[in-house]
């Protein structure tokens, strides 16, 4: 294999890996926003998933138990946001920000409390090469969700909740229950994305390891025009820039490493700005019912 082909293969594989956690979180964002709840807490749910997965893998020795716990932790925070947004009708942006602060602080507190080791956890049993299953599953998930949203009664009702919850209620359904379901699923997906970061890509949790991916995922939701397949595609786009940063390191010495680190964030800004007048959010997105 020539050097160029090997490099392209590396870049392609890395793109898939880096896109996976963003894709899971972005799918969570799509489900939540389609039901009418803006999930700013995706970042915190990823942190919770990443940290909890490491704790449970350390305690049980099984990375699968860690993965399940990570998903559950994300879902739990999803429940918190869901109850806050439906029962208490709070400002979803403020509540989501609170979740992000709690999760970041909680993981840092937990590192000291559980591992007696601030900053980063010790190494734990990770998924190893079977993490590729999760990469493939992200693709499968986006197809399944796409079909569920556009070809099932549940999907139709969920989307109706995000457009006109009153009409859903008039049809004899419970919009708040549908929203709660959606945001719990959203948290579970973000938790899965977080767990992929900690026990998939590597084998430990360190403070700040999610590095704003939950917010990049929100950008991916918009870039993907609130559809699962679109969001997955946008995740690939952002994953590519993250992968590029690793491939360029050591190969393009003229480009400072700090500039490479900023690449995914700059890409997200350009993606947001490039969509002027061409996207439309669900009509009732972010409005309490």
């Amino acid at each position, binding site marked *: 294999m020539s050097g160029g082909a090997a490099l392209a293969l590396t870049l392609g594989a890395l793109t898939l890996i880096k896109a996976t956690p963003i894709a899971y979180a972005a799918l969570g964002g799509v489900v939540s*926003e389609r039901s009418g709840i*803006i999930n*700013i807490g995706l970042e915190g749910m990823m942190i919770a998933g990443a940290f909890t997965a490491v704790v449970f893998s350390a305690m049980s020795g099984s990375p699968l138990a860690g993965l399940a716990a990570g998903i559950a932790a994300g879902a739990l925070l999803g429940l*918190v946001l869901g109850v*806050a947004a439906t029962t*208490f*009708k*709070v*400002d979803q*942006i*403020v*509540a989501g*920000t*609170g*979740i*992000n*602060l*709690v*999760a*970041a*602080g*909680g993981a*840092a*507190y937990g*590192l*000291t*409390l559980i591992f007696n080791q*601030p900053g980063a956890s010790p190494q734990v049993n990770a998924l190893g090469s079977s993490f590729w299953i999760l990469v493939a599953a992200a693709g499968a998930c986006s197809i399944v969700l796409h079909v569920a949203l556009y070809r099932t009664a549940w999907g139709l009702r969920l989307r109706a909740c995000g457009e006109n919850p009153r009409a859903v209620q008039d049809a004899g359904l419970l919009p708040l229950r549908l929203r709660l379901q959606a945001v719990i699923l959203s948290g579970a997906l973000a938790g899965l994305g977080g767990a992929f970061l900690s026990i998939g890509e590597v084998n430990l949790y360190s403070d700040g390891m999610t*590095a*704003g991916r939950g*917010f*990049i995922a*929100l*950008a991916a939701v*918009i870039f993907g025009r609130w559809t699962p397949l679109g969001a997955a595609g946008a995740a690939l786009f952002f994953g590519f820039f993250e992968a590029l940063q690793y491939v360029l390191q050591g190969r393009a010495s003229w480009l*400072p490493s*700090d*500039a490479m*680190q*900023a690449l995914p*964030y*700059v890409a*997200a*800004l350009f993606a*947001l*700005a*490039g*969509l*002027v*007048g061409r*996207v*439309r*959010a669900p009509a009732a*997105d*972010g*409005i309490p019912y």
Partner: protein
Amino acid sequence: MKRAAALAGGPAGAILLAFVLAAIAMLVAGVSPADGFSALFLGSLGGRNQIAETLVQTTALLFPALGVALAFRAGLFNIGAEGQLMIGGLAAGAVGAQLDAPGAVAAVAILAAGFAGGAAWGALAGWLRARFSASEIISTLMLNFIALSLASYLVSGPLKASEASGAQTAPLPAASWLPALIPGTRLSIAFLIALATAGVLAWLLARTVFGYELRACGAAPEAARRSGIDMARMTLLALGLSGGIAGLGGATIVEGVLHRFNTQLSPGYGYTAIAVALVGDLHPLWICLAAFGFGILESGGLAMQALADVPKDAIHVIEGLIVLVLAARRYVATRAQTVPL
């Protein structure tokens, strides 16, 4: 009277809740709350040096919290105070290390540079929203990471002090440092500047046409638009001013505490500032009190960790829970739904 009742139901209740939560966090860590709280308060208010350090933290939180509050009042969710603080500090450090001017002139010029740097960073998000409908929630957060990369690049390259081994700018000449408020401590007159800024902001919001229009954009965007307020201009101004105030805070840390710029400028003041602004009911004068409360937590947290073995990060969990609880009061005025998110 009405305001006092609102405070009892909201911020005051939240502070009471914070104490309960802190006690739980201490119990979880296996420490008696009596020991934990005594360490917290001795470490933050137990003497002249401790009080000075608490006021240093209060100052560092007050600037970005005022900036955040201003944007919130305009209906804009600026979560980029961290990046605006960083760029303000960077601009202050860059100008301060190069500037050859008499002390007082230099001191003012450095503060102005910090304000301008933060304002530019905030206005960038404002421009992206006004011109391209890019959600300021995402763009300000992205700009936090970009600010850190930019600062990290500049201090390890072009702006690096030639003699220094670490990544930082050259020190500011001593003549341009902010004078100490309590000699022998890190507390400078930055504290007074922060209080003055709060006063000016309170006046601006309550007593000027600009402040009225700004609040109108947050409280009733549709009515504001129909009454002829230029929303694009207000978005740009509000986020620019919000960033400028945070940037001013960054400059005072450079000029009053570090006396040079490096990327360790902030341990997350810009994020904690969101909690401070909400606890302060988005009102500049209450925010001063809230910043003092959080200043106690920040400076006492270290003592609590050292003396009572309660991890300092417990403080940040408590801050987040307060924000969650306060969310119920619908602080952020009706957000304009014109931007897709």
